[in-house]
């Protein structure tokens, strides 16, 4: 429980359906900022579990008549989510920490704790659905998009497998955000949205550059900005500060300024170079995913037609997914995908079904 609308309604729905419900909030790691004028203060650093959020969640649990625990997960979150995220920036990629969080924290650490309390299921406020198919003696769990296309969060849940889905519940996934809000009103729960933000929960004030420099001094080494002909046309401040498709903030010498706008095409770790080019040079049809995860537990027998998206907010596009020996997968889009970025997740769908996904290793 976060104290927000979605997890509160999820809990209320389960109580209403007669389940014995236990509320849990995870205390996640945040950077300890030194005290001083203008400092956010150490308790407020991770938005997930600021003191007001804890108080809100506790009050909601009380209102629902369920026990509530806030469980400290700071060091496991730091180790499994934040450290790998920092490391991935050091490898010239643009990582998404939510995958590791769902895999290792929510459906790892938290699931363990839930089972330890005698729970049969772990429910969250995610907008996604689980469908159960029984054929002969086998039960298959399918992960489906939430019914609200705008709120669908199946993308970040693609890391889940059969065992996770067998003990997961997403009560909000059957509803639109609008309906969830109406239910919150009906349950007498607070409906105010906590400031929704694109920033990561552990980033103080959304400043990922300052965060990286404080946490990993030396992670950013300035180097050249090259055009596609290999000519030096400017200087960058360190690869972690750039991502594919970025246009702003490129320090390109005026004499090299192009008639057309320039975009980051590639971060070249070997040369410590940012490669830039024009909009029509951006984008790729071919994507290699390392260690593709399949919700079903097994890769398809051969290449399949499906759709995929290369970022949470990217548009889903038609493609062919070819499983490779060793567990990787080659994805060939029908049309070039503009912002496919190493480190981000590629998630494949068959209609509403999440087939699986993995981290983009190479976009060429």
């Amino acid at each position, binding site marked *: 429980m976060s104290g927000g609308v979605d997890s509160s309604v999820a809990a209320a729905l389960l109580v209403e359906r007669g389940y014995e419900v236990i509320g849990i909030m995870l205390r996640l790691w945040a950077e300890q900022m030194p005290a001083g004028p203008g400092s956010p203060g150490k308790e407020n650093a991770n938005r997930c579990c600021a003191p007001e959020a804890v108080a809100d969640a506790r009050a909601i649990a009380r209102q629902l*008549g369920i*026990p509530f625990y806030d469980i*400290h997960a700071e*060091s496991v979150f730091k180790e499994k989510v934040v450290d790998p995220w920092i490391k991935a920036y050091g490898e010239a990629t643009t990582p998404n920490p939510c995958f590791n969080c769902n895999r290792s924290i929510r459906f790892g650490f938290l699931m363990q*704790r839930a*089972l*330890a*309390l*005698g729970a049969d299921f772990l429910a969250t406020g995610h907008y996604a659905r689980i469908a159960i198919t029984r054929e002969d003696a086998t039960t298959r769990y399918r992960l489906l998009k939430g019914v609200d296309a705008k709120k669908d969060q199946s993308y970040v849940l693609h890391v889940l497998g059969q065992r996770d889905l067998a003990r997961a519940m997403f009560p909000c996934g059957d509803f639109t955000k609008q309906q969830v809000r109406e239910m919150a009103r009906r349950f007498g729960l607070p409906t105010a949205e906590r400031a929704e933000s694109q920033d990561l929960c552990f980033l103080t004030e959304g400043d990922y550059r300052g965060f990286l420099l404080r946490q990993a001094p030396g992670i950013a080494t300035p180097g050249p900005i090259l055009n596609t002909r290999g000519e030096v046309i400017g200087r960058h401040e360190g690869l972690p500060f750039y991502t594919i498709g970025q246009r702003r903030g490129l320090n390109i010498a005026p004499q090299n300024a192009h008639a057309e706008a320039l975009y980051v095409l590639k971060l070249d770790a070997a040369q410590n170079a940012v490669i830039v080019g024009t909009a029509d040079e951006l984008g790729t049809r071919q994507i290699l995913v390392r260690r593709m995860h399949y919700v079903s537990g097994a890769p398809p027998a051969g290449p399949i037609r499906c759709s995929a998206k290369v970022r949470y907010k990217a548009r889903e596009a038609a493609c062919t997914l070819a499983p490779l020996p060793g567990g990787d997968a080659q994805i060939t889009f029908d049309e070039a995908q503009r912002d496919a970025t190493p480190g981000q997740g590629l998630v494949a769908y068959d209609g509403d079904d999440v087939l699986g996904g993995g981290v983009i290793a190479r976009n060429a």
Partner: protein
Amino acid sequence: MTSAKRRVYLDYSATTPVAPEVVQAITPFLSETYGNPASLHSYGRDAAAALDEAHQVVGCAIGARASEIVFTGCGTESDNLALRGAAFAARQQGRGSHIISTPTEHHAVEATLHQLQDLFGFEVTLLPVDGCGRVDPDDVRRAIRPDTILVSVMMANNEVGTLAPVAEIGRICHERGVVFHTDAVQCPAYLTIDVEEMNVDLLALSSHKFYGPKGIGVLYIRDGTPYISMQTGGGHERGRRAGTVNVPGAVGTAAAIKYVAAQREAQAPRLRHLRDRLIDGILASVPDARVSGHPQDRLPHHASFVFKSVDGETLLMALDVEGIAVSTGSACTSGDPEPSPVLLAMGVPREWALGGLRVSLGYHTTEEEIDYVIERLPRCVEQVRRATSDL
């Protein structure tokens, strides 16, 4: 909680319900006799008379003079005032800056000594403890140096219940002219406290641990003990703790200490019997379980266990789901499951030290409640073990 499930409170070492006679004693001082005891007028005199009597009663109960009793805000404050007050008084007199304590003290002492060391240049020696959490008085004797100014050893450990040989340690301190402080917060409801027999100079109590209200503590300061008040302001409590005294709290403390003095003799053996029943029941039914702390020489109401490969906090939650209110015994507020420093200091292996559990009984505990725990606890331990070894 709207749940109709049965609830069993076995966390009396965390806090106790206020006894009805204590509530009765306090009530008039909330509304009728509300004067400030420092005021000159009749309202003030009425409050001052009650406060004088409270000093008298509390002093008498622990073998001290009324003038040696200081009311504070809580047990932690009493420890803070005692340690800082004695340390800075010794520094002012140029007597030295060496302090001796143990690694099993309550946070109120441990964190205060840490700060005295890290920020204020005092030197703290922590003596070893044995497998039961007990410090050897001979180690105290050997550790005392010419510049030693203060020894702090808690009378009974909150986490593992072990009683310390305070009287002997106090005697050694007095032979060497060293101030002796003890945190006796866990004790009054179950043990007799006598500051003369214990040879103690500074002693901390907390009313809510013995059926009194929260928000009031006691600090005993033996007359003549070097002490500087670390809370400055007016001359309340004879200049030893500035701030208007919590009169209802002080009156309640006096009533509570009278209440436990009358109950103690009958309750201690009853609780010891129930406690031993619990220990036998748990050890018989839970694999890889041990009692932590001293098997006999411990608080009579206090049972503490370690379970191999069990995270204590998770076990508490699993028990709470069953309606059983217990504790790990340590004030673990800092973060992820960490082995208890107290257990580690006692030589408990790391894989056991995560699983500390304290079951503390009280005057209202029944045999049936103990049997409920004996029935439910083994299943909870098994459940936690299964879940957390699974992934």
